[in-house]
């Protein structure tokens, strides 16, 4: 099974539960945490890349714990016609999806590493980074 990207949203009462541990231990899932954030009111967001045979059972477990899981439906992409290859996004991107190739100094976008935080969408001086639903 190819890895699937999902976004998890959970409330304060879930924040202290070891849900990722259970997904690995009980459901034998291979998990790559692309992004994790718990805000001051202890509500959390997590972007995961998951693969494993018990994927559906794992999702069922999350649901029972009160975790809202949904596939990553939004995708950030680069409009190549607009991009001026300046590089201003490359130190703003937190996951290294946007980076400079050296020594050519070409700006590269590796969408596999994109966590859809959309920081680049606002920062891009020529609005070349776009969100697709």
């Amino acid at each position: 099974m190819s890895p699937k990207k999902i976004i998890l949203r959970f409330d304060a009462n879930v924040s202290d539960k070891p849900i990722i541990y259970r997904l690995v231990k009980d459901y034998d899932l291979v998990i790559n945490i692309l992004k994790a954030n718990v805000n001051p009111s202890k509500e959390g967001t997590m972007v995961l890349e998951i693969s494993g045979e018990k994927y559906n059972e794992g999702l069922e477990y999350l649901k029972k714990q009160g975790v809202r899981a949904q596939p990553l439906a939004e995708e950030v992409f680069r409009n190549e016609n607009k991009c001026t290859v300046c590089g201003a996004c490359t130190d703003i991107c937190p996951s290294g999806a946007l980076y400079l190739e050296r020594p050519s100094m070409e700006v590269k976008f590796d969408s596999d590493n994109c966590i859809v935080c959309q920081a680049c969408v606002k920062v891009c001086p020529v609005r070349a980074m776009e969100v697709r639903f």
Partner: protein
Amino acid sequence: MSIERTYAEINKKIQNGKAVVLTAEEVISLVREKGIAEAARQVDVVTTGTFAPMCSSGVFLNFGHSKPKIKMQRVWLNGVPAYTGIAAVDAYLGATEVPEDDPCNSNYPGEFRYGGGHVIHDLLAGKKIKLEATSYGTDCYPRRELETYITLGDINEATLFNPRNAYQNYNCAVNLGNRTIYTYMGVLKPDLGNAHYCSAGQLSPLLNDPYFLTIGMGTRIFLGGGTGYVAWHGTQHFPGIQKDNQGNNYGPAGGTLAVIGDLKQMKPEWLVGTSYLGYGATLTVGIGIPIPILNEEVMRCVSVSDRDLYAPIVDYSEAYGQRIPGNLGYVSYAELKSGKITVNGKEVPTAPLSSYPKARQIAGILKEWIQKGEFLLTEPVKLLPSYKDGIAASTLEIKGI
């Protein structure tokens, strides 16, 4: 005997298809291999390029006369105001102008999605632009208002005139403060979270002619994808040499150019409307300047590499805005391009605002034009002030009235 060439001799070779042209990037390895004297013998022209936001840009427009005529007192193009304090249907649209209803930074950080630079880009893309004008009405210009659509092809003139472009060198911007700041140097993260620079370095036009030996008034250039000319030195033209407190030399500082050209023959990919989050709208301008290798001294100047060129590191959280002199040291463009520099003992990731690949492309296009004999060099009518002129920046003091 050392080589000497005239503009006329170089142009003759260009017309005969025999001129040897290299980009400012290509010439570096040639000089390393053969030395300055031999490289000067071999090469006739070196091309440079830069593609970066340049705020002091804009276009003079003449719309032609409506029936009945109007003496335009206020003008808007797609909602962006243009300056009309000139003749009846002339206006100057500045790159950083934004619509009167733009929330600007009242919704901090403002997005500045559309401004004068974007209108220029849309004109070049052949789009229809909404033109609105109002006036007080005169006996000879009775109309008081109009609303219509124009395209670049419809109007009489569109003359790009940029009072300050092609900065010779620029600051490397950092943030020593404890909150994210939004500047014309991009988003700067707190506590030295990142460093932004904005120069094509070894490809940059004025870093390849640091003493203004060849670039002057009337120099024909690549401007916005078409041809243009150097009109004058730019505003804030301070072509000094950077020195640290110990008197060490860090190369050229802040020369600038005023450039002019017919917008109608330029291309939208080389004049791009640009927005800086929390700062404003502007225009990204593509400029390429040919440097005639008149002698060995000119060849020595164009042979500089990123390792020889330095930017001052400046704190934009306080020092810049408060006009506090000094800087946090100098850093070479080679270090800046490596992706990290060290500031105050801390490793800081870097990112450029000036597109090096596009600068390389511009230098390549200009090289091709010259090789094909389509682009001849012009001898400046007047050279521009250099470090020898000792120009110092004036400041604006707030005086009581």
